[in-house]
């Protein structure tokens, strides 16, 4: 069965019209997001996260590589049918009401009038805006706009939800509310792809993460593995497959980092044994250190190492 999202060597180069200067916003990203996953995309400002999302949604055209959504080429308009998207810094037309906005985007998603009329009150209630449906969006607060934006993304019952900073400007209670909605969707099998700066939120919600930096995947793995408490981290390259399997079995967690494999061992003895095995096989050890335990630490370490 195909992945919800799969990219292979995705590249996006922006060229200045006048100077010809190139910016490699996305530089060969290969990523797989399984169906039903809760996936967090992290990275510092300007890392290429939003460009990557725009390539998935065909808002921008790739310079190289390919992206598929549920096995379909992302450039095909039909590939976007199962996607619900909430952009960062969205600008919903202020002349619309919450109701008319949902109706408009629902129609663009191919929903007929009857389905839209049934779905809109349901969704407004879900996001706690049932009393505001007929008010103009110009009167909504930032948090309310985020919630109605989420309702918009859910309008056609998507099987892949792409959310760019979904809790931006939302108060703590609203954030909790959004998280609860996302948990329900996760249980229903909806794939959730979260692009966020809020590491704590990603740590709370996502099972898998990728950190991208300077347009490349700098770190990828399961949140529980990457934040598996204190231990000893060994990053090595050119590991024979047999040895890698052996070390995987012993390690608390394993992640891919810059094309290398990173193992996390619970004790100094285990780490030393691993070093002995790796050296015996003439593997290059790139780094070795005691680990921290929060996603923020992992993030900072990853970005600083680049």
């Amino acid at each position, binding site marked *: 069965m195909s992945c919800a999202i799969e990219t292979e060597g995705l590249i996006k180069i922006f060229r200045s019209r006048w100077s010809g200067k190139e910016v490699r916003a996305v530089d060969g990203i290969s990523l797989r997001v399984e169906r039903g996953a809760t996936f967090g995309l992290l990275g510092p400002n300007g890392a290429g996260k939003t460009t990557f999302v725009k390539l998935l949604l065909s808002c921008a055209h790739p310079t190289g590589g390919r992206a598929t959504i549920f096995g379909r080429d992302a450039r095909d*308009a039909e590939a976007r049918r199962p996607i619900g998207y909430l*952009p960062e*810094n969205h600008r919903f037309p202020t*002349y619309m009401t919450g109701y008319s906005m949902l109706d408009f985007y629902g*129609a663009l998603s191919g929903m007929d009038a009857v389905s839209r009329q049934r779905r809109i009150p349901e969704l407004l209630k879900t996001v706690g805006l049932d009393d505001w449906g007929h008010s103009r969006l110009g009167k909504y607060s930032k948090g309310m706009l985020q919630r109605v934006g989420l309702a918009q993304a859910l309008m056609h019952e998507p099987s892949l939800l792409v959310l760019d900073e979904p809790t931006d400007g939302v108060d703590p209670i609203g954030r909790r509310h959004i998280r609860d909605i996302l948990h329900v969707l996760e249980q229903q099998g909806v794939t959730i792809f979260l692009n966020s700066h809020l590491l704590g939120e990603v740590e709370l919600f996502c099972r898998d993460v990728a950190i991208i930096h300077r347009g490349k995947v700098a770190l990828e793995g399961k949140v529980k593995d990457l934040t598996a408490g204190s231990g000893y981290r060994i990053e090595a390259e050119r590991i024979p497959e047999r040895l890698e399997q052996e070390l995987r079995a012993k390690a608390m967690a394993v992640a891919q980092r810059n094309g290398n494999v990173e193992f996390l061992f619970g004790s100094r003895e285990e780490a030393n044994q691993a070093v002995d095995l790796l050296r015996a096989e003439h593997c290059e050890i790139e780094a070795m250190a005691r680990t921290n335990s929060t996603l923020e630490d992992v993030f900072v370490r990853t970005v600083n190492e680049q």
Partner: protein
Amino acid sequence: MNNRTLLVTGALVRDTFREAFARKIFWGFLGCSTALILFFVFILKIDVVQGAMATVSLFGNTRQGGDVQRLVRQTHGAIAAFLYTAGMFLAIFASAGLIPSVFEPGRIELLLSKPVARHHILLGRYIGNVLVIAANVFYLVLAVWLIFGWKTGVWTAGFLWSSVLTVFVFAILLTVVMLVAVLWESAVVATMITFGIMLISPILAQQRVLERLLTSEWSRNLVRVLYYALPKVFDLGRISRGLVLGDPVGDWMPFWSSALFGLAMLSTGLYAFARRNY
């Protein structure tokens, strides 16, 4: 055209109307048209009370049957000319923002994320914009035509055809707005370039005179190329006036060459939109 295409096109057109309502464009035009209609209703009402079967009084002047027909045609002509010139400028000025507004960051991404082809999004918006103006033009022209016809018994189809031609010219000029909006995302630049095309049209319409005055061959060729390439707003205005006055259309070249220009602009706009990164 399948149901889904109609559903999406309908949504895009409704959204354009909604935005035109919110920007008061639609209501502004409707208010002006209604005021003009009421003006004619009022004047004709007084004259009918004062007039006999064979005569009608308009603007306080009593005319015989033959004169009435001429007067109705002239009044139709005046309204058609007003719509074609001042109305066209106003329509372009007022609605030029309806297409560029779609390209605002934060709005375009959401539209592009929907399972709709890019050309469909742009065409839907374009059709919506044309319909906003067409609704107002047809409302005014049809109402005036009915009022005059009912009061005077003069029913000339030329006036109705002239309104179709006015909408046609607006639709062509709007393709320029659309292309400029896609390339530069600016309503101001789009308006300026479109006004430029409208203003240069009467000069280019004097192409034969200009060619006699120009000394170099390349400048004569330039005038010729510009005349045939750009929409013939002035020539089509003359055709519109001829339609109202009941004159036969002698030359359809301004019509089809302008249509070709519109098609070229539309295709280029759609192509540029399909290739852009947002």
